[in-house]
């Protein structure tokens, strides 16, 4: 029998969508499986029975060290405003900023996991002029720092584990927690932004069902078109680290399968792309942002070549909302 790990989950400057997404897990018994994997949820704000004083008692026991805190999950960005006071989120019933609670609990936690891009990097709440002074646990956008500072390490010696995504796929969360529970998770399992490689070693482009359109640069021009979303529609799937088109969402979906751009929501500062999300910025007709590790000259050359080789079927379907030409069956030739 493995030792149970105590998990506490807090929510702050986010939308709660990562928890709601977790409940979309395709597990037949989500909570049963997590428990069987050795994860004991001491408190989760959306799920546990304890409310008010009962809940605060659990948090106080963990913060004071009276109860072992193995994994602290934080969902939502940390709101430091106004002017560094943290008053934009006072944890109900305590008169204290949530940022203060997170710092106390982080000092005790064996592992700390940022759930979602908000808790990882600041995320959507940090957009625009960042009125709430939102940041991540250990990053502020692309810069190390955030609430806990670049040198913070949890009791395990690990930095904050950033399960980024807006929202997180249920599998990214359950796999990361289970990897920790199995004791096999260490710094080598994290990428350069401390995200678990178990889902960031792929690009959203991998497994994209619009791949044939991509190959021929047969591009969508408007919402609901079937073509590739990169050239005109703002899609950044070739640069976004996540396995969205391999795992799939809600059974069989993903952003690009839903007909809209990947906005690279697992990356720091995705909330400020510097252009309207659904429009690809271009110079002389060439998208500014090209696929990761592809030389620009080659991309342009291949694009020109593939555009000239595009079959009529692919070209016509790309700008339609259904296949106007279906793949032909080859007529049997003379034997």
């Amino acid at each position, binding site marked *: 029998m493995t030792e149970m790990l105590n998990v506490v989950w807090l929510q702050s400057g986010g939308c709660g969508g990562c928890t709601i997404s977790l409940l979309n897990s395709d597990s037949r018994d989500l909570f049963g499986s997590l428990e069987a994997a050795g994860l004991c949820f001491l408190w989760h704000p959306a*799920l546990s029975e304890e409310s008010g004083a009962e809940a605060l008692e659990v948090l106080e026991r963990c913060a004071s060290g009276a109860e072992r805190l193995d994994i602290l999950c934080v969902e939502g960005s940390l709101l430091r405003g106004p002017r560094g006071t943290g008053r934009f989120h006072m944890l109900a019933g305590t008169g204290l900023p949530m940022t203060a609670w997170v710092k106390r609990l982080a000092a005790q936690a064996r592992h700390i996991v940022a759930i979602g891009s908000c808790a990882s990097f600041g995320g959507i709440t940090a957009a625009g002029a960042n009125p709430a002074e939102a940041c991540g646990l250990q990053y502020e956008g692309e810069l190390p720092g955030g609430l806990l500072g670049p040198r913070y390490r949890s009791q395990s010696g690990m930095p904050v584990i950033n399960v980024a995504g807006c929202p997180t796929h249920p599998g990214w969360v359950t796999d990361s927690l289970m990897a920790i529970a199995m004791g096999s998770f260490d710094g080598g399992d994290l990428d350069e932004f401390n995200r678990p490689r178990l889902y960031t070693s792929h690009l959203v482009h991998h497994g994209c069902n619009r791949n044939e359109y991509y190959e021929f640069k047969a591009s969508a021009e408007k919402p609901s078109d079937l073509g590739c979303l990169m050239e005109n529609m703002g899609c950044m799937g070739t640069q976004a680290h996540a396995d969205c088109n391999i795992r799939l969402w809600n059974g069989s979906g993903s952003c690009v399968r839903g007909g809209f751009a990947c906005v690279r929501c697992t990356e720091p500062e995705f909330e400020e792309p510097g252009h309207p999300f659904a429009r690809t910025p271009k110079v002389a007709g060439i998208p500014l942002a090209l696929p990761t590790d592809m030389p620009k000259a080659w991309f342009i050359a291949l694009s020109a070549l593939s555009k000239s080789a595009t079959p009529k079927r692919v070209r016509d379907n790309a700008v339609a909302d259904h296949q106007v030409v279906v793949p032909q069956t080859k007529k049997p030739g003379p034997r």
Partner: protein
Amino acid sequence: MTRLVVGPFNRVEGDLEVTLDIADGLVRAAYVNSPMYRGFEEILVGKDPFDALVFAPRICGICSVSQSTAAARALAQAMNIEMPENGERAANLVLAAENLADHLTHFYLFFMPDFARDAYAGRPWHPSVKTRFAAVKGSATTDALPARAGFLTIMGYLAGKWPHTLAIQPGGSSRSVEEAERIRVCALLIEFRGFLERRLFGDRLEAVTALNSEPALRSWMKQRPPAASDFRLFLEIADDLALGRLGRAADRFLSYGAYPLQGKPLFGRGVWDDGMAPFDPANVTEDPTFAWMDGPGKPLHPSEGVTRPHAEKADAYSWCKAPRLAGKTMETGALARQMVDGHPLIRDLVATSGGNVRNRVIARLLEIARVVPAMEQWARALKPGEPFCRQGPFPDEACGVGLAESARGSLGHWLTVSRGRIQNYQIVSPTTWNFSPRDAAGMEGPLEQALAGTPVGDGEAVPLAVQHVVRSFDPCMVCTVH
């Protein structure tokens, strides 16, 4: 008089704090504090109008499609375009999937677990409720979560993913549907109906929607034992604990109307205030008096609304502004929607006992039974090959209002665009209405009204009746302030 500060409230979406003044075992006054401010209305200023489709859903993880819908409708009004029929049906299916999933989440994960608490040991129904509804561990969780997740695979087909889809566009849906997918969606609805009829209702959905009065509901309830369905079990608890006498607000109800198709909504739009009246969007205001907000200090229509946080403001006690309709508070949600639409069961229940904890829950479950058959029709009527989305240019100068009904009630977005950029964006969410603080006249918000008179037992640090009242509104605190 003693004062009790209660929070954090578990099993509500987001953080909530309620201050109670208590005397002689009853709540005398309540002050509802939405303790978190993020600033979406500030963030959106200066953005490209279509970027609202990325930001708005991220206001809320549990009502993200409702936020998308309101944003898309505000843009559509500014662009003066309408959705094709396929787009309307697809958008209705996506919004309905969210709303019903939320009703299910509320009932099974947020609301019912309170009755499994040890404080109710000794009640005749407690042993079966504890087995079925104990938080996280009850058998209902293992039943309802996979049913919910399975139902939400509709989102995989029609919205790409949920939460935070961009599929809902001003001109329709970015996701066209093939014939095989139309059939898969119909199959998913068959499966979901099966779960509802087996576990939640223990009867055909049509038998539930046909209930037309409180006596009819009572005789339906007695046809089978309480343990035969989760709805009957709830009704037994509601009777035993007199939940029909708990948590009454002012019985004024607002609904913007839901699920439009060719100009006609499935559920009608209007206001109930001792009788039906039309809804006039011009009469909506937000009063900042008791919110930590600066501004001109008087109620403003959202189209000219101001959001300027001021954390040190004296006498303020919430980040939430106080929405009013022609100066009055409004309760919104499934009960309001069914009341305004005129469902006979809800009209009868409210005529007898008003808006209360029991009736709010009944209205939510009734709505599940009413919407699934409509979803079945929309899915069957999708026409692969015909358009799902219309296009149009966006004017440089424009205004738009987007009104939608989320699970929790009436949601409005007010958009002003100048020189092609968002100049002002104001959001009034359902829980902004329901969990409003007082206004300049001192009028309490609906939850504050509903909590007055709620019993508090000796030594109860987190009074159970207070929790039932709070959760009966299915609050979404992240939407409330945004």
